[in-house]
């Protein structure tokens, strides 16, 4: 019996690869019509799920709005109502382990209840079909990679290659009367498309791939197919993926190689636009901050969930007026903003903030514009000493204004002023920057750990050339001093690791325990040539109390030739750098 099964399977894989070329033209058209219909259905479904998600996000924000204090034992996690010590003290929800008052509960049976949030989660899982995807994921591990690609899509693509007529969606069959069940060879019996349906399908076909992680994840193993969609896949996946997709990606631990890979791709971007930004796509806003403590975040439900899919770019120009000592920031325009609810119009505005907050306390906002490609052309000036330029970071975030309701996040980016060499010229140079997902919120338990939404690390770097080393001529030493270690008020088991990635896959690693009082120093032996292509990564690790594995908490990167050039031009001098320390999803473990 076993043997029989195997042979059956093998036959399918080998003798009948999914080659639609085997079918006759008529059959192909017939199946194509079905696939197009399915695609239209899935598009509508994806839209519905997106709206559900926006709704859920609303519920979440209602609850999470006012959490600014450390996770309080004595207030309801949902409505923030203070709870008494003995009387009306609430109890712990079995879903999220937060203390919940008696009003924020949904009672399911005499003994069983859940908080409103957990209930909303459950409802969402049911309505979106997520429960099924989770179950599927148990059996198919590859679903994470192929999840967004559905069989329907793959078949459609293969059709588009095979069929001459199928480059455009098929013309709808004539609107004929169909007398009961009467199936014949012609496609006339199949259900006709209405014109509007077809239009809808065409207009949203671009979106579907982003969101096609609907229930029908009929992905098949790539090997099973003889058609090649690699080309299409890679292009489409490079678009920002929907939140669900991200949630799904989250299940995979973004390991360090991933991280550096991301960084590499953004480096490419940097080279074309002369901006380098360490916006690795590794930090996620999460409903519960506590995946931080958990190595395997649950199957996507509570991780990337609240993330609006972030796409789009923002054009920003900087200039520095030496006469007035003012930094001029011009927000020019945004393009391709992604807004969750397709039925409503996007009303975006841009918030600008100079970081670190300690020095600058001015927030700036643009007017609210309409549409997904708004043009602002608004300039903000803020007084800033020349010396502070190199150590400042501008945070630019885009928000959707909903009038009195809570605003929605559309994307943000961090720009290091040091990268713009503003000291030299006054003229403003505008640059398009890709928007990224939100940096980790400090919600729940880790509040004291990360007091601000972004941690900026002040580092001083120095490059020393050893002239006595005549053999290599240019060997030297890179010294790194992190001056504000006190900010990292983490547990005693935390340590800092500096990794200098050099060309040729070489890397130099230094680890130093965190002592709260001292500045932290690291040095690397490196030649001038090597340094030009190097990048420095500073990681904050924590030794885990209950397991042997250490956990990566945060990491920052310094790369780009402009940074190193500053060092090389004046060897022996200290240069200030500000490095955004991004929180990482804490699934990076190592023993």
């Amino acid at each position, binding site marked *: 019996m076993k043997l029989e099964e195997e042979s*059956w399977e093998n036959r*399918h894989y080998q003798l009948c*690869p*999914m080659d*639609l070329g085997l079918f006759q033209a008529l059959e192909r058209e017939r*199946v194509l019509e*079905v696939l197009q*219909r399915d695609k239209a*259905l899935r598009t*509508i479904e994806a*839209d519905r799920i997106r709206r559900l998600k926006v709704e859920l996000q609303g519920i979440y924000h209602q609850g999470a709005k006012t959490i600014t204090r450390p*996770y309080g034992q004595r207030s309801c996690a949902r409505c923030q109502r203070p709870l008494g010590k003995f009387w009306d003290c609430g109890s*712990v929800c*079995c879903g*999220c*382990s937060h203390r919940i008052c008696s009003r924020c509960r949904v009672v399911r049976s005499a003994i069983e209840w859940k908080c409103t949030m957990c209930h909303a989660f*459950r409802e969402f899982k*049911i*309505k*979106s*079909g997520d*429960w*099924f995807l*989770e*179950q*599927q994921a*148990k*059996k*198919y591990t590859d679903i994470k990679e192929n999840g967004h690609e559905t*069989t329907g899509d793959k*078949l459609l693509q293969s059709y588009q290659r095979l069929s001459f007529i199928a480059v455009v969606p098929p013309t709808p069959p004539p*609107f004929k009367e*169909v*007398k*009961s*069940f*009467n*199936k*014949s060879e012609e496609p006339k019996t199949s*259900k*006709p498309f*209405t014109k509007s349906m077809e239009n*809808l399908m065409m207009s949203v076909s671009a979106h579907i791939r982003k969101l096609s992680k609907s*229930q029908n*994840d*009929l*992905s*098949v193993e790539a090997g099973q197919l003889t058609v090649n969609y690699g080309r299409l896949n890679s292009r489409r996946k490079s678009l920002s993926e929907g939140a669900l997709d991200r949630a799904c990606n989250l299940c995979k631990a973004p390991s360090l190689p991933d991280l550096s890979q991301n960084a590499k791709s953004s480096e490419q971007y940097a080279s074309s636009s002369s901006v380098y930004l360490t916006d690795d796509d590794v930090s996620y806003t999460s409903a*519960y*901050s*506590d*995946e*931080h*403590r*958990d190595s*395997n*975040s649950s199957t996507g*439900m*509570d991780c990337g969930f609240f993330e609006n899919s972030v796409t789009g770019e923002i054009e920003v120009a900087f200039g520095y007026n030496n006469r007035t000592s003012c930094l001029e920031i011009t927000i020019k325009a945004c393009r391709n903003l992604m807004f969750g609810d397709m039925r409503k119009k996007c009303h975006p505005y841009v918030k600008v903030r100079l970081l670190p907050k300690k020095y600058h306390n001015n927030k700036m906002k643009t007017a609210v514009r309409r549409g997904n490609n708004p043009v602002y052309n608004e300039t903000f000036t803020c007084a800033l000493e020349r010396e502070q330029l190199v150590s400042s970071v501008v945070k630019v975030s885009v928000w959707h204004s909903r009038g009195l309701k809570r605003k929605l996040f559309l994307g943000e980016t961090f720009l290091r002023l040091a990268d713009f060499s503003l000291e030299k010229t006054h003229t403003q140079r505008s640059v398009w920057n890709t928007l990224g997902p939100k940096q980790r919120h400090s919600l729940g*338990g880790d509040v004291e750990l990360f007091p601000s939404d972004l941690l900026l690390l002040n580092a001083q770097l120095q490059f020393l050339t050893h002239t006595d080393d005549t053999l290599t001529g240019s060997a030297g030493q890179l010294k790194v001093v992190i001056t504000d270690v006190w900010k990292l008020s983490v547990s005693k088991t935390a340590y800092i690791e500096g990794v200098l990635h050099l060309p040729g896959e070489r890397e130099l690693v230094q680890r130093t325990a965190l002592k709260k009082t001292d500045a932290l120093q690291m040095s690397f032996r490196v030649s001038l040539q090597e340094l030009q292509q190097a990048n420095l990564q500073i990681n904050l690790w924590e030794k885990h109390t209950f397991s042997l594995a250490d956990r990566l908490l945060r990491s920052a990167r310094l790369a780009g030739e402009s940074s190193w050039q500053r060092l090389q031009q004046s060897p022996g001098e200290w240069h200030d750098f500000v490095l955004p320390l991004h929180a990482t999803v804490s699934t990076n473990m190592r023993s």
Partner: protein
Amino acid sequence: MASATDNRYGQKESSDQNFDYMFKILIIGNSSVGKTSFLFRYADDSFTPAFVSTVGIDFKVKTIYRNDKRIKLQIWDTAGQERYRTITTAYYRGAMGFILMYDITNEESFSAVQDWSTQIKTYSWDNAQVLLVGNKCDMEDERVVAADRGRQLSEHLGFEYFEASAKDNINVKQTFERLVDIICEKMSESLDAADPAVTGAKQGPQLTEQPAAPHQDCAC
């Protein structure tokens, strides 16, 4: 005229978003056991005795009201013929429930049930819900598979069992409704089973309240 209205109605149904959730169901079984007829009877309440082999795959959409919920069903009809097998098996993975059909007047279709069930196990998710349906029960004269044999096999395979007739509209609606019900059961089961995992994922705040918990994990 009436059927034109039906068509429009059907179209409207597939684009309608006024439902609570969507289930995907797959009908499988040997060629000519009556899968397409069964689907047409359920979705359109129509029947034609003419046999036309399904090309590859097809689907219909029907929204039903069950357990106070509007459930949209996308019911996939597959070709029974071997040559379409690669397309049809590709759709197994996205299906939450299956209707495995045989023809009570055709011994061969009954003996293939075992193979079909293996296919489901191979290509579908682990909790796939399957109903075994013996179709054409109106043709009692030509019956070659006794109802008892069907029942025994279904018990052996762990499926539920119905005898139905698309022609005489016997047990068609019941079959689909029962399948929807057991998918619903499976759904709440999997959600509730997932709950402890969710709790585990958010153990952070709990640690302060039950410091013993991590030690239990550690005492291996």
